[in-house]
């Protein structure tokens, strides 16, 4: 395998996709609370990763990751046949994914706290969209979509 086979767009999308996969296991949401019983305050907090939060965003972002990795994997395997649909799909799905994560930043489920994973996930997903867009431009040779 030769990483030089990857175009700049494919590389950006693939790196961002791997980053998003790792980030998905970090805390995305948190719930904290405290109870006072007989003058003693007992508090606690619990964090949820993307996979633990009851939200279809996990399945969606998994699809985005797989779609983003496809062109890079095909290129690395030497099967880099024209896959213009793959770069378009990466851009579209990651773009929508960025909107969905951004929506979660402003409207967290059950008014949970925002954790670091949510913000890093937003950046990584936007990175995939940018990579897909660059790849789309590279494959079309400047042709407008």
């Amino acid at each position, binding site marked *: 395998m030769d990483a030089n086979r990857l175009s700049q767009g494919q590389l950006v999308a693939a790196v961002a996709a791997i980053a998003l996969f790792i980030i998905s296991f970090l805390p995305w949401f948190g719930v904290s609370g405290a109870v006072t019983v007989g003058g003693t305050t007992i508090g606690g907090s619990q964090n949820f990763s993307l996979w633990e939060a009851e939200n*279809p965003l996990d*399945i969606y972002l998994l699809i985005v990751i797989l779609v983003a990795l496809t062109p890079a994997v095909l290129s690395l395997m030497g099967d880099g046949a024209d896959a213009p649909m793959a770069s*378009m*799909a990466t851009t579209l799905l990651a773009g929508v994914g960025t909107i*969905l994560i951004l929506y979660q930043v402003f409207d967290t489920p059950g008014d949970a706290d925002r954790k670091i994973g949510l913000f890093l996930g937003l950046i990584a997903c936007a990175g995939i969209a940018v990579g897909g867009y660059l790849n789309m431009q590279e494959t079309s040779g400047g042709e407008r979509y």
Partner: protein
Amino acid sequence: MIGRLTQGQLIAAIGAVVLLVAMFLPWIGVGGTSLPSGISLPPGVSGAVGDTSENVWKGSTLDIYLLITAIVALIPALLALTDSAEEFSFVAAATFLLGVVAVILVAAFLTIDFPDGAERKIGAFIGLAAALAIAFGGFRSMQEEVAGEI
């Protein structure tokens, strides 16, 4: 104006409208405890312990995603209706792609992600059927575009 739409665009547009309507129908139902027979509520007290149901707008990011899918599927029809139809080969592929992912997400919602103890309501099934129609319409549009180029 509608006559300008291809079969695929029409199917996708109808699917999108049905999806938008379905999103306001009940998707999740939670059964409440029923009163034992023979017990009547005092006047002025409603049977608040009964079933409640919620549509897709309350809960998750599925609502926003389905809204985006429906809007993209409606774009060709809206362009035709406003006489500003242009070549957007991108839209057919986007409709197909978003429709397929919508089918996966709604199916996952109905199976893996469904809240414990809740009941699946008609809106979810109509939503699934509408997402399937959008995906099929997008696929058909892509086929029609390819056929038109040959």
